[in-house]
C-alpha cells in the first residue's frame, strides 16, 4: 500500500513535468499508475497492516479494498478518455498533476483506519480536486467556492470529533476507539458520531448538504465530472459505511422501528429527502450535466438508505449500489463529455438527433441510464432489488414511497437527455458532427461491458461485499453463483438474462421474416398537415415535463436559503467595515457608545 501511495504522489510530480513537454503523457501516466495500483492491490489480502513513511498507520479493510478497486476502474476510464480530450484544456500540466494527486488522496483515505491520516488524505483529495473544478469554465470559480465551503463543514466537524476522541482515549485508531466508545456518556456519543457522519454526508451530497453538486458537477471540466460523481462522491459513502459498520451502532443507539435503530432511522430520512429533492430537481433541469448531478443526489440517498439499514440484504444493496452508480455515472458523464467535445454545449434543447452521428456515445449513455434506472439485465437492478427487499421485509412503507418515487422518477429524468440530445430531429448545425476518436470510445465500450457483465455475473462484486459484511459482524448476503437469495425469495440473474436473449431472438426473428421497411429521412414526418421549412424547431426538448414541473414550480430552495445566509454575513461584514472606517458618522457612533458606557458607570 505504501508503494502505491508513494508511486501516486511521485507520479503527480512526474505527470506535471512530463506534460510540460507533451500534454498527452499526463493521462498516460495516470492510466499506468491506476493499472499498477489495481494489479498490486488485487494481490494484497484484506486486513493487512503496513507502515507509511515509518509510521504504523495503514490498514486495509475489505471495505477499503472494494472502494479502492472501484475508484481505480473509474480513474482508468477517465485517464484513457483524457488522452485525447486533454487538448481542449488551457492548463493541461496542472490538470494532470492534480488528477493524479486526487487519485493518491482517495486511495490514502481507503487505506487507513487512523483518523488523522484519514483526515489528511481526505483534505489532500479536496485540495487537489478543488483546483481542477474551475479549469475549463471561468464561471466555475464560484462553484469551487461552494464545493470547498460545504466540504469544509464536513471535514471540520470530522476533525473536531477526531480530537474530541483523542482527548478521551489518547488514540487515533478507529478500531480501538470503536471498542471503547460505549464508555462515553450518551450525548458525547451522539455528538461524535453525528460530527463524523457529517463529513460523509457533505461529501456524498446528501440532503441538507447537497447544494454543491449542481454547480460543481455542472461546471467542472467535462471528464472530471465523471470522477466527481463516480468516485469522489463515493468517498463520502465510504466514510458513512465505515463508521456505521465499525461503531457498534445497533447497541449504542436504541431501537426505533422495524429493527432499525434511531440513528439509522434519521439517516434513512435524510436519504428519503435526498431522493425526493434529487429526483424532482433533476426532472426540471435543462442542462444535462446538472440533471445527472441531481440524480447523484438521489442515488446517494439510495446508498445511504441501504447502508443505514445495516443488515444482511440492505447493507449489501447499499454497497452494491455504490459500484453501480459509480460505473453508471462515469459512463453517463463520459458520454456527455463526448457530446460536448463535438458540439460545445450542455443545454439539452440546443441539441438533438445525435444518435445518427454518434452511435457509440449514444449506446454508452443508453446502457448507463438503464443501469442508473435499475433495469435488468444491467447491474443497477441488483442493488435496487436488494434495497427493496430489505425495506419490504421490514415494512418500512413510508420510506418505500420515496424509494419508489425516486426509482420511477429516474425513468423520467434519464429520458430527457435521451430524447432531447440523442433522439429526435438532427439540428442542421450538427449535420457534420462526427463520432469521437477511437481512444475516447474505448473506455466507454469497456464500461458498457463491465455493467452488463456484472449484471449477469455479480459474483465477484458480491464476494467483496460479503467479505466486508463478515469483517464487521453483519450477516453475510446469501448467493449461489448467479442466484441471489433473501428471506423474501430469490432470483437468478443468469436465467433472466437467458430469457431476455430468448425474447429478443423471438422479436428479431419476427422482425426479420416480415417484409423490410423502406428508409425515409427524418424530415418525412406527420406534421398535422402543416408545411414545415425549419425542422430544427420540430423537436420537443425544452420544458419536457412542463405539465409536471408546474405542480411543484414554487418549491422552497435550500440553495437560496444558503445564498441568503451568505448575503446576511456579507452585509454584517459591510456594517462592521463601515463602523471601523474613519467617517464622521462612525466617529459619532463610537463616541455615543463610549459616552453611554461612561454614563452607565463602567
Amino acid at each position, binding site marked *: 500500500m505504501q508503494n502505491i501511495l508513494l508511486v501516486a504522489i511521485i507520479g503527480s510530480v512526474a505527470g506535471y513535468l512530463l506534460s510540460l513537454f507533451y500534454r498527452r503523457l499526463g493521462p498516460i501516466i495516470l492510466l499506468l499508475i491506476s493499472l499498477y495500483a489495481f494489479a498490486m492491490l488485487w494481490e494484497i489480502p484484506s486486513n493487512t497492516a503496513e507502515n507509511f513513511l515509518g509510521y504504523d498507520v495503514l490498514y486495509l479493510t475489505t471495505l477499503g479494498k472494494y472502494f479502492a478497486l472501484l475508484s481505480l476502474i473509474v480513474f482508468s476510464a477517465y485517464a484513457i478518455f483524457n488522452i485525447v480530450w486533454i487538448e481542449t484544456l488551457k492548463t493541461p500540466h496542472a490538470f494532470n498533476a492534480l488528477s493524479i494527486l486526487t487519485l493518491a488522496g482517495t486511495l490514502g483515505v481507503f487505506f487507513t483506519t487512523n483518523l488523522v491520516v484519514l483526515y489528511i488524505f481526505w483534505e489532500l483529495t479536496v485540495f487537489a480536486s478543488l483546483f481542477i473544478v474551475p479549469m475549463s469554465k471561468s464561471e466555475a470559480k464560484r462553484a469551487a467556492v461552494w464545493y470547498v465551503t460545504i466540504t469544509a463543514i464536513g471535514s471540520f466537524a470530522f476533525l473536531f470529533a477526531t480530537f474530541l476522541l483523542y482527548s478521551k482515549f489518547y488514540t487515533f485508531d478507529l478500531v480501538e476507539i470503536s471498542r471503547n466508545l460505549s464508555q462515553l456518556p450518551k450525548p458525547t456519543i451522539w455528538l461524535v458520531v453525528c460530527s463524523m457522519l457529517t463529513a460523509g454526508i457533505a461529501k456524498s451530497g446528501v440532503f441538507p448538504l447537497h447544494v454543491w453538486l449542481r454547480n460543481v458537477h455542472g461546471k467542472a471540466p467535462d471528464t472530471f465530472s465523471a470522477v466527481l460523481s463516480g468516485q469522489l462522491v463515493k468517498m463520502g459513502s465510504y466514510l458513512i459505511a465505515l463508521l456505521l459498520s465499525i461503531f457498534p451502532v445497533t447497541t449504542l443507539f436504541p431501537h426505533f422501528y422495524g429493527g432499525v435503530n434511531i440513528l439509522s432511522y434519521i439517516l434513512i430520512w435524510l436519504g428519503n429527502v435526498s431522493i425526493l429533492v434529487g429526483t424532482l430537481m433533476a426532472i426540471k433541469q435543462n442542462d444535462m450535466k446538472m440533471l445527472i448531478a441531481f440524480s447523484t443526489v438521489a442515488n446517494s440517498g439510495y446508498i445511504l438508505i441501504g447502508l443505514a439499514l445495516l443488515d444482511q440484504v440492505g447493507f449489501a444493496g447499499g454497497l452494491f449500489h455504490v459500484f453501480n452508480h459509480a460505473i453508471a455515472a462515469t459512463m453517463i458523464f463520459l458520454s456527455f463529455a463526448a457530446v460536448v467535445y463535438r458540439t460545445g454545449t450542455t443545454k439539452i434543447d440546443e441539441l438533438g438527433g445525435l444518435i445518427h452521428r454518434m452511435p457509440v456515445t449514444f449506446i454508452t449513455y443508453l446502457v448507463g441510464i438503464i443501469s442508473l434506472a435499475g433495469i435488468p439485465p444491467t447491474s443497477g437492478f441488483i442493488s435496487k432489488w436488494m434495497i427493496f427487499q430489505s425495506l419490504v421485509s421490514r415494512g418500512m412503507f413510508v420510506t418505500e414511497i420515496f424509494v419508489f418515487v425516486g426509482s420511477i422518477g429516474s425513468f423520467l429524468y434519464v429520458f430527457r437527455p435521451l*430524447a432531447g440530445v440523442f433522439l429526435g430531429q438532427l439540428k442542421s448545425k450538427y449535420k457534420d458532427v462526427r463520432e469521437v476518436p477511437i481512444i475516447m470510445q474505448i473506455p466507454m465500450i469497456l464500461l458498457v461491458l463491465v455493467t452488463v457483465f456484472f449484471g449477469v455475473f455479480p459474483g465477484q462484486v458480491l464476494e467483496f461485499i460479503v467479505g466486508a459484511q463478515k469483517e464487521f459482524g453483519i450477516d453475510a448476503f446469501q448467493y449461489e453463483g448467479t442466484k441471489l437469495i433473501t428471506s423474501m425469495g430469490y432470483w437468478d440473474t443468469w436465467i433472466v438474462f437467458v430469457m431476455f436473449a430468448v425474447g429478443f431472438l423471438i422479436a428479431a426473428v419476427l422482425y426479420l421474416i416480415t417484409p423490410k421497411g423502406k428508409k425515409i429521412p427524418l424530415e418525412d414526418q406527420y406534421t398535422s398537415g402543416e408545411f414545415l421549412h425549419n425542422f430544427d424547431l420540430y423537436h420537443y426538448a425544452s420544458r419536457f415535463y412542463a405539465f409536471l414541473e408546474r405542480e411543484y414550480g414554487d418549491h422552497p430552495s435550500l440553495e437560496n436559503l444558503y445564498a441568503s445566509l451568505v448575503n446576511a454575513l456579507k452585509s454584517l461584514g459591510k456594517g462592521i467595515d463601515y463602523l471601523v472606517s474613519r467617517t464622521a458618522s462612525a466617529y459619532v457612533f463610537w463616541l455615543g457608545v463610549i459616552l453611554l458606557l461612561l454614563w452607565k458607570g463602567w
Partner: protein
Amino acid sequence: MAVAARVAGVLLTAFFFGLTFEGIGRKVTARIQKRYGPPWYQNFIDVLKTLTKHGWTHGWIFDFGVVMALGGVIATLTFVPLGNFVAFPGLDNFFVIVYLFTVGALGMAMGMVGTGNPWASIGVARALTLMLGYEVPYLIVITSLLYNFKTSNISTIVEIQSVNGWNIFRFPIGALVAFICLQGMLGKEPFEAPIAPAEIASGPMVELSAKYMGLLMLMNTFMEFVEISIFVDLFLGGGNYFEFLLKYLTVWIFAIMISAVLPRFRIEQAVYFYWTVPLLLAFIQVFLVVAGM
C-alpha cells in the same frame, strides 16, 4: 425441455387469448356505444395484415426500439404465473417482473422518439409522468401484500390464496387501489392522455406503419396480459389454468366497460388523483396490514 414447453405455453396463451380477449373487448365497447362492432377475431386479422405490409422506417434506432420493446415484453411474460401454471417456479419475483417490464416500455419509448416526431415525444413524456402517478400507490399496496405474506414470489401468494381464500375479500381496499392503478397501466380511459388520438395524434404511435405497427400491437397485447395476470394472481386467487383465464376475462371486460363510458383526465389531473385518493387508500391498507387486521 419441460421449461421450454412451459415457456411456449405461456407465450401462446398470451398470443391467442390476449388477442381474442381484445377482440371481445372491442365488441363490448361497441355494444355499450350502441354499435355492432367488429368480429371477435378482428385483432388477429389486424396483426397478420400489418405484419405482411411494407412499412417506413426512420433509421436503426426505430427498428431496434421495436425489437427491444417486443423482446423485453416477451422476456417479462415468461416469468408471469398464469394461475398455478408457472414457467419458472420460484423465479416469479414481483420486483423482477415489474422492472423487466420497463425494458419493453423503454424500447418502445426510445424507438418512437427516434422517429423524430415531437408528438411521439409528448406522448412518451406523458406516459412516463402517468407512470410516476400510478406506480407509487400500486407498489405500496402490493408491497403491503408481500410484507403480509413474507414473500415476494407471486406463485407463493397464489398458493396461499387457494387455502385462505381470495385476497380481494381479505384486502378489499388494496384490491380497489390496484384496480384503479391497473386502469392507468392499461392506458384506458380516464387515464388515456399518453395516446390521446384526437389530441396528440396517438402520441407514440404517430409514425408507425405496417409491420412496426403489427409488432407493437403484439407488444401491447402482451403488456396488457402481464398487467392483468399479476392483478388476477395477487387478488383473485389465480386458480388453475382455465379458472385463471375466466377471471382474466372478467377483469378485462370490467376495465373495458369503465373505459367505454369515461372521458379523459388531463395528465397532471391524473397524477394528482393518483397521489391523493389511491395513495391515501393504499396507506389505509398498509395500516390494516401492519396492525394485523
